[in-house]
């Protein structure tokens, strides 16, 4: 039996809906991982020990265990504790926190690397330490790690396929559902791959724009 790509158009709607879900989950998780990353970095660097230690354990948990397991834990595991999250929300939390931990490592390094004169100049004007961090140090640190954070976000897009296992009908699951009906795995997985690639190109374009915009502020 040869390949037959003509089956794809009749599932175009389902696939496009899958694309939209993939974009929705990627963007939501990316936003969470970005702001979460900043927050985690500040905690890791400046919080008192009683907060920092449990936090380190939490960070280790997210970096040292499979994302798939984390998604199962959040979606199925938390139900036992009476927390029954919709699959989409569980997926965003899992992906978002997982990548927030990675982003946080980047941002921590960048915060430490911001020239000490910046903090001094801000303090000299009368800003408190938290004000100086928020207005002066963190924006520069974040600006400095936009490219590697961008790479993390591309990885996040690819890992978003994992939320198919908890039943979010994003692109991968949409392709699987179509395969279940048509028994055409090659055609639909290939179509999904092309669609992921297109989303990826879009993301890279957005990242390049952001990078260009921050060019002057170095």
């Amino acid at each position, binding site marked *: 039996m040869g390949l037959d790509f003509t089956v794809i158009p009749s599932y175009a709607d389902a696939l496009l809906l899958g694309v939209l879900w993939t974009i929705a989950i990627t963007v939501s998780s990316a936003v969470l991982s970005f702001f979460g990353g900043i927050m985690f970095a500040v905690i890791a660097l400046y919080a008192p020990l009683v907060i920092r230690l449990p936090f380190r354990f939490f960070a280790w948990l997210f970096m040292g265990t499979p994302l798939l397991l984390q998604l199962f834990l959040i979606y199925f595991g938390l139900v036992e504790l009476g927390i029954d999250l919709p699959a989409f929300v569980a997926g965003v939390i899992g992906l978002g926190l997982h990548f927030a931990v990675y982003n946080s490592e980047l941002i921590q390094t960048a915060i430490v690397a911001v*020239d000490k004169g910046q903090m001094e100049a*801000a*303090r000299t*004007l*009368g800003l408190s330490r938290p*004000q100086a961090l928020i207005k002066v140090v963190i*924006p520069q640190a974040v600006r400095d790690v936009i490219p590697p954070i961008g790479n993390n976000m591309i990885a996040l897009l690819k890992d978003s396929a994992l939320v198919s296992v908890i039943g979010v009908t994003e692109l991968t699951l949409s392709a699987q559902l179509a395969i279940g009906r048509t028994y055409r795995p090659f055609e639909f997985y290939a179509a999904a791959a092309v669609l992921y690639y297109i989303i990826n190109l879009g993301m890279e374009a957005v990242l390049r724009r952001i990078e260009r915009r921050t060019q002057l502020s170095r």
Partner: protein
Amino acid sequence: MTDPKPFVEIRHAQKSYGSLEVLKDISLTVQRGEIVAIIGPSGSGKSTLLRAINDLDPLTGGEIILDGVQVNKTLPHRQYEKHINGMRQQIGMVFQHFNLFPHLSVRDNVTMAPKLLKGISGKEADKLAEEQLTHVGMLERIDYYPSQLSGGQKQRVAIARALAMEPKLMLFDEATSALDPELVEEVNLVMKKLAEEHMTMIIVTHEMDFAASVCDRVLFMDQGVVVEEGPPGKIFKNPDMDRTKEFLRKHLAGSK
């Protein structure tokens, strides 16, 4: 005629890094509107003294008093933070390497602190930025970023940024020594203008000509002590101490 109450008073300032004593019992007063230059060899403690005045490098002993209020008060941490932030709003500082905020436009460099700390509106902030940048001749660069400016322009913006907080006292730590020679004059002119407006200033500098032409008094520091002080005419032309003479001889020979 001296004011009975000095504007800035440094009493028995002492600073150690471990066993290294960097400031050794320095006392100094500055009157309102007075312009004082601090000169001396590298490592003599000039920056440390200047940075002690706004508590950027806290003293290990002694007192700093500005306009009747002790800057380096002993207070519980939280209260001290509040106190020192208030004091620092009244003390402008200009650094050798400008330390402009690269992620902010020239306008926002000038207005960030006043907006945040004095709660002025966006409109008032724009007016303030325009005023202060006009003052230092940088109005036409108001929407540039620091990366688009020359060193001299950066330093003029840094001065405008400090002035926007309406400080009572300005501290300059070698404001021109990171600049290419041809850019020094534009910054010196701005400082001269401030002098004419009777801003109280303490200026650490290696530029003897500038100190001589602008300052009311010159302090020569060496190894953590003020060796000699007096009007520029006296210190530069006819110093009493051998250490001063030697420094000036070496320095003037080196700079010519």
